[in-house]
C-alpha cells in the first residue's frame, strides 16, 4: 500500500506541506502500519467520493487534506475538508497524519523517533 498526504489551509501556506508527502508504511512499526491499513479498509477509501465535506461559509483558515492511496493497481484520491466528523474518516486522517509525523521525527537527526 502506498499513501500520500497533502495539506492545505490553516494559519499560513506552507509549500512543503502542500506538496504530496509520502507515508512509507515499511518505515513504520509493524503494528502502526497494520493499523493504518485497517483504517483505509474501514473507511472504504476506494468507494469515497473525490471530495468529503464542504467548506463552511465564513470559515477562513479551514484545513484541507488530500489523500491518495494506491493498492493492488488501484489508485484513488480524496480531498477532506474539515471538520471531518464521520468517525472512520476522522480516524483515518488521524492515523495518516500521525504516521507522517512519526516518519518526519525519525528522519530528523538527533531526535528520537
Amino acid at each position, binding site marked *: 500500500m502506498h499513501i500520500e498526504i497533502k495539506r492545505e489551509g*490553516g*494559519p*499560513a501556506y506552507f509549500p512543503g506541506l502542500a506538496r504530496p508527502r509520502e507515508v512509507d508504511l515499511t518505515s513504520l512499526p509493524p503494528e502502526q502500519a497494520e493499523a493504518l491499513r485497517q483504517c483505509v479498509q474501514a473507511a472504504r477509501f476506494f468507494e469515497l467520493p473525490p471530495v468529503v465535506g464542504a467548506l463552511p*461559509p465564513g470559515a*477562513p*483558515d479551514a484545513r484541507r487534506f488530500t489523500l491518495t492511496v494506491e493498492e493492488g493497481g488501484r489508485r484513488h484520491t480524496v480531498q477532506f475538508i474539515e471538520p471531518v466528523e464521520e468517525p472512520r474518516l476522522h480516524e483515518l486522517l488521524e492515523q495518516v497524519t*500521525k504516521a507522517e509525523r512519526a516518519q518526519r521525527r525519525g528522519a530528523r537527526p538527533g531526535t528520537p523517533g
Partner: protein
Amino acid sequence: MFHPTRHRHSIHCILPPYLARSIAQNGTSEQRERVLRTLSTDSTFRALRLAGSRTTPSTLVTRPRAMMVESALHRTIFDLKNSEAFPGTPVRFEGQEATDDIAVTEAYDGLGDTYNFFWEIFGRNSIDGDGMPLQAFVHYGNNYDNAFWDGRRMVFGDGDGDLFNRFTICLDVIAHELAHGVTEDEGPLWYFRQAGALNESMSDVFGSLVRQMKLNQKADAADWLIGKGLFTDNVEGVALRSMKNPGTAFDDDVLGKDPQPGHMKDYVRTWEDNGGVHINSGIPNRAFYLVASHLGGYAWERAGRIWYDAIRDSLIKPDMGFLDFARITVMSATRLFGPGEEEDAVREAWEQVGIRVARSGVRMPAFVGAVTQPSTQAGRAPRA
C-alpha cells in the same frame, strides 16, 4: 456617486472611546449626556449603513441607547479535552480567576486584548459591533495544528509539538482569527483570490496592531511578524509571515520556504490556498506596513484607522481586488485626515508594492473636518 452623506461611520472618531468612557464615568452630567449621544449615534449610523447606501440622515432610526454605551466583554472559555465534540466543559467565565491551564489563560487574555483593541481604538463593541459574547474552545482535537474562527466561536488546537506549539501562544494569531469575524461582519470579502488575500491581510493588520498595542510599540519598534513563537525549535523560521519583508518568515526542510510576495510583480497565480489567499496577502500587508512606518507613531492611530474605515466603507465588494481596495484606503485617508500627509502616504505605499491609484481614479469626498480625532488634528495648520 460618492457624496459626503454616504460617509456615516467615522463620526465615532469625534471622541476616542477610552476618553468617552472616562467622561461617562467622571464627567459632569452635561458632558455625560453629550458622550452618550455620540456613542449611540455611532451605532445608529452603523445600522443605517447596513440598511443600504441610499439612506439619508432624515430616515435615521435610533436604536435603544443603553446598549451602545457600556463595553460588553463577555468571555467564556471551554475545555474540549482533546476531543472535537462541542461544547466541552466551561472552565472560565468573565471575571473569574485564572486557572493553571496556560491555554485557557492565553485564550481568555487574547480575547480580552482583542476586544479592548477594537473598543478602545475604534469604538467597536465586539466582533459584530453589538456586544457579541466571545467564546473560545481550547484543546481541540489531538495534536491539532490550527486555530480558527468558525463564524461564531474561536477554536484552538494544541499543535503537534513537532512543528507547532499551542495555538494560543501568539496574541496576533488570536486577533487574526477574531478579525476574520470582523471582516465577515463588515465586508464580507470572499475567501478567494485577491478578495481572499485582502481578507487575510485585514486579519494580519489587526492581528499585528492588537499585539503592538499590547506591547505599547510604535511602528518603528514593532517587528511586524505574524505568529512569532508558534513554531517549535525544530523549524527554521521566526514566524508565519512578515508584513515588513514578506517571503522571509521561514525557510524550512519540512514547511518549505515562505512563499509571500511583497510586490505585484511577484504576484502568485495559483489554484492552491483558495487562489493564494495566504500567499498574496503579503502585498497588501506590506502596503499597510509602509503606510504605518511612513506616518510613524502608533500604527493604530492613523494607518490602522484608515484601514478600519476602508473595510467599513459601503464601496467594499465581496469580490474586490487590490486596486479597488487601495482606492478606498486613499479615500478613507482623505476623509479622515483631509488631503495631505496621510493620503500621500497611503498612495505612495500602494505604489511601492506595484499598485497605482491614479489621482483621477479617486472621487474625492468633501473633507468633513469634524470627524477626525482631536488629538491628531490639534495644532495642525490648514492645508490647501
